């Protein structure tokens, strides 16, 4: 009897958690279809805010910036993180192997500290050399920096889960180092790479703090645009952008999870 009560209590807690997690999102999505210009009263279904979005050049430009930033930084982070993950795996038995945890620093560091230091760095480089003017390039660099540890970790954990004799079997079966990478290593970790790409993609799309500190006047992304816009109050237009971003991020996260699960099998 007591056990039943406990179980009910826990399940109630679970539902409560879900409510706090998803209800605010649901409200945003719901009001993005509001016919009236209000975040309190729903007067009817309408797609007018979505139409307004398409007409707003600032939003379109922010959207493209976000997309370019996310894709370019994810691709670069994938290439570098994959190499680091493989290197961590290859040298996991080394004495100073634990030093590799240093690359996890960006994960534990507060975004604001990370963002401010990146900004200070780029500004001083720019002052001395004229290179790295704040803009899309500096944003890509800083995004790559915080994406790499995630990619490396995913690749590493996939490799550690493999039978180490597979590497030897590939050598034994006449595969040269290049052929080993191409015909064995890459196909084997492919699900992990796809998963890591989508995770990096969502991290980049989501990021506001680091982007905010490293962006230039022309390179506002959607989160930065939203930040600027809500100073004037939350409009249904913002709700519509938010709804679209929720959809995109949820999709990317699900793809990441899907491919990761496939890889674990």
């Amino acid at each position, binding site marked *: 009897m007591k056990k039943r009560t406990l179980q009910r209590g826990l399940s109630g807690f679970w539902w409560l958690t879900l409510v706090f997690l998803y209800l605010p999102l649901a409200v945003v999505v719901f009001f993005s279809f509001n016919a009236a210009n209000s975040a309190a009263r729903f007067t009817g279904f309408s797609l007018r805010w979505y139409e307004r979005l398409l007409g707003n050049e600032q939003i379109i430009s922010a959207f493209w910036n976000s997309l370019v930033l996310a894709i370019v930084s994810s691709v670069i982070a994938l290439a570098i993180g994959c190499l680091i993950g493989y290197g961590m795996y290859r040298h996991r038995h080394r004495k100073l192997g634990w030093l590799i945890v240093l690359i996890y620093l960006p994960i534990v560091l507060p975004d604001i500290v990370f963002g401010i230091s990146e900004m200070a760095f780029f500004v001083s480089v720019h002052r001395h050399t004229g290179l790295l003017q704040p803009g899309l390039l500096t944003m890509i660099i800083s995004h790559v920096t915080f994406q790499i540890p995630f990619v490396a970790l995913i690749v590493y954990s996939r490799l550690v889960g493999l039978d180490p004799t597979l590497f*030897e079997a590939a050598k034994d079966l006449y*595969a*040269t180092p290049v052929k080993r990478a191409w015909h064995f290593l890459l*196909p084997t970790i*492919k699900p992990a790479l796809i998963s890591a790409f989508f995770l990096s993609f969502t991290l980049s799309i989501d990021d506001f703090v680091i982007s905010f500190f490293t962006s230039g006047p022309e390179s506002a992304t959607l989160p930065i645009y939203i930040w600027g816009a809500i100073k004037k109050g939350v409009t249904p237009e913002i709700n519509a952008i938010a709804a679209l971003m929720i959809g995109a991020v949820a999709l990317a996260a699900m793809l990441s999870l899907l491919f990761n699960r496939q890889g674990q099998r």
Partner: protein
Amino acid sequence: MFSDSTTTRMGESCMSDSASAAKVETPSPASRRADDVGETSERTRREPSSIELKGLHKRFGRDTVALDDVDLTIEAGEFFTLLGPSGCGKTTLLRILAGLEEPDDGRLLIGGEDITDIPPHRRSVNTVFQSYALFPHLSVRDNLAFGLRMRGESAAERRRKVDEVAEFIQLGSLVERRVDQLSGGQRQRIALARALICEPNVLLLDEPLSALDAGLRGQLQVELQRIQKRLGMTFVFVTHDQDEAMVMSDRIAVLDAGIIQQVGTPNEVYEHPRNAFVARFMGHDNLFAIHASQEDWVDTELGRLRLDPAEQRQEQEGWLLVRPETLELNADLSEDYNRLEGQVRERLYRGSRVEYRLEVNGVTVMATASNVGQRLHNVGDKVAVGVHPEDLVRVAS
């Protein structure tokens, strides 16, 4: 090579390929081997190869000696087994043959050619791994064809060889499956086929049967031996199971602490172990310390026993080996036999044979009798124990 109908065809293609290769390239085997792309005919097996190990040393870290000055010759076409407990160096030796480990010192020759410094992907040696190491991202067919593909053989050639080898190991129906749909025994055979299909000069097998249950293991032992005889390939087999080694091998090398203790045929190693380690490892419990000895007798804990003078060894010290199955209990024996008195302490009924733990002169002696038409001895029975001098073997310590 896997079926009679294709033997001649493959033989011809091998010969013509190697002949044309020899025209273009310099005939030196070393320089031809150096190029690993395109030269598929180079590694195609023609004759089984012998293996020579000269003064091999291998150490891990500062203190662990894996191999200590190993000299060994394995004949071409032989089923050779490296036998020993875990950590004896047998797997290290196999890995050096495969090229997956480099010796600290010493040379390795296969087919008379020094391949010590040749990387594994350029050695005509293939391995069946203990964990099978089938590629999870590939189908069974692609796993089988992997080696051929890496050597640059054409798709048509790969397809033909895969079908041929699948038929040879009687797993034709599994070829299109995924690896994770196979049972342990099937994986084992696919791993074997994946190595055989490359027709290496030497096939290495690293405890390939240890993960299988006893019934399947026995069946595959016979099958492996049959395959080896049929292909005439040089097999180097690693195991810690002395029964498995004896059933399958032409010759066995017993290793301990990185040193080869004895090399010989199964019956040499079993019946005439060179030292106490080999004797114990081959499953012999009846070893008795020799206190004193002469030409034709020894004094042991059991008492004075007559020996066959032909069995004479130079060592004065050491052990006397009395194999349990050579002891005769309560039998009508001729004058030649050594006779002792014993008492049954324990009886283990094994069906086809019966094992007795006897006490003879205060010492425990194991005796095995085949279970044919004779009365079983009961615990507590006094028995006359007889052993023929020719069955007694002196073993160094």
